[in-house]
């Protein structure tokens, strides 16, 4: 059970062009503190390898043909394999070359966040919330008997929440949208910005796939609802540019 008498550390880290928040509700043992430091170091390592903003990153050099996949650390192969899987699962609505150049960013942040969460878990922190710039991996509970409560930012009404997702046990929550960075998600089929949604929130078991699927669902547009309904273990809340909303049939298990 999470320990309310000795709440663990909260840490905020600016990395990967965004901000990660670690909220740990277990007893702050030395092992947990070590795992937190390791998780933070991992995020910086991931940034150095995968950043498309750094010309010296492995991904940038791989994309430009300066190096081969065999020259890259093993996690590059892992990420590209995962991207391939999501592209396949989503009928091509997720692309590792969204703007014509190699860019697995749509999967990397969720993958890195899930990995950070796992490092904490392996060190004995079983009640944690790791927020990677708006996409979260939750584990356990906020307090004994108290589920995590995650506000879903309303994309059209800044400062307001569209709903609150309640998570009792492990859950990933990912939101794709235009509110913070504009129309940055491209339709891989046409190459034009996807515009069907103001925001699309997907909940699922683990953040790597939940985050990447959310990107694919956002790009998919009109057929997104039917696709998520068939996706076992995932539920969606969509907010359209005109303010209308839809939810998949099982979303009510997590939020109103």
């Amino acid at each position: 059970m999470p320990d309310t008498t000795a709440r663990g550390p909260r840490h905020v880290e600016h990395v990967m062009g965004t901000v990660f928040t670690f909220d740990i509700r277990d007893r702050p043992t030395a092992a947990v503190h070590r795992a937190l430091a390791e998780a933070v170091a991992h995020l910086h390592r991931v940034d150095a390898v995968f950043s498309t903003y750094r010309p010296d990153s492995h991904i940038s050099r791989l994309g430009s043909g300066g190096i081969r996949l065999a020259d890259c650390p093993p996690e590059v192969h892992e990420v590209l394999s995962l991207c391939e899987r999501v592209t396949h699962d989503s009928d091509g609505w997720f692309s590792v070359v969204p703007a014509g150049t190699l860019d697995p960013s749509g999967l990397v942040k969720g993958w890195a966040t899930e990995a950070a969460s796992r490092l904490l878990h392996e060190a004995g922190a079983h009640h944690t919330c790791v927020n990677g710039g708006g996409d979260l991996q939750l584990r356990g509970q906020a307090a004994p008997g108290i589920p995590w409560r995650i506000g879903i930012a309303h994309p059209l009404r800044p400062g307001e929440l569209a709903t609150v997702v309640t998570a009792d046990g492990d859950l990933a929550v990912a939101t794709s949208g235009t509110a913070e960075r504009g129309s940055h998600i491209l339709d891989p089929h046409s190459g034009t910005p996807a515009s069907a949604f103001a925001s699309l929130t997907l909940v699922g078991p683990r953040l790597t796939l939940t985050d990447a699927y959310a990107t694919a669902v956002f790009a998919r547009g009109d057929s997104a609802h039917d696709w998520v309904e068939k996706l076992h273990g995932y539920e969606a809340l969509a907010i359209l540019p005109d303010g209308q909303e839809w939810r998949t049939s099982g979303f009510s298990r997590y939020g109103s």
Partner: protein
Amino acid sequence: MRRAVLATTGISALVVVLLSLKPHQLPVLAGAAPRSPASSATPHTRATTSTGTGTFTGDPINTDYGTVQVAATLAKGRITSVKVLQAPDQNGRDQQIASYALPRLTQEAIGAQSAHIDAVSGASYTSQGYIQSLQSALDQAHA
């Protein structure tokens, strides 16, 4: 730009002030009996009742960019409105920032405390966007 970011950071202290008024952290506001105010909020005798209803004036908080002070009105232990009594206004830029940031941050604080949330999911924010985010306010309130 740097100035704008710093000024906004200063104003975000407001949200910390507001979130620090959370009823579940201040049982005297939500509870039935106590009359004595919490250390960080002084109830107006005019409107205070024993049911956590009334107007509470926060202590002035000194930030690097000026003094911030707010008053919050509670109904049955929940914030219903917030009035900004003091905010940095040394120059036109401060006033401009305050004019859009304060209403937004006030709204965020009201939303956060009434929903009792632990974190926020939304479109991926940049490092700068984070500064004005509700997640940032939550992090500061619990730091």
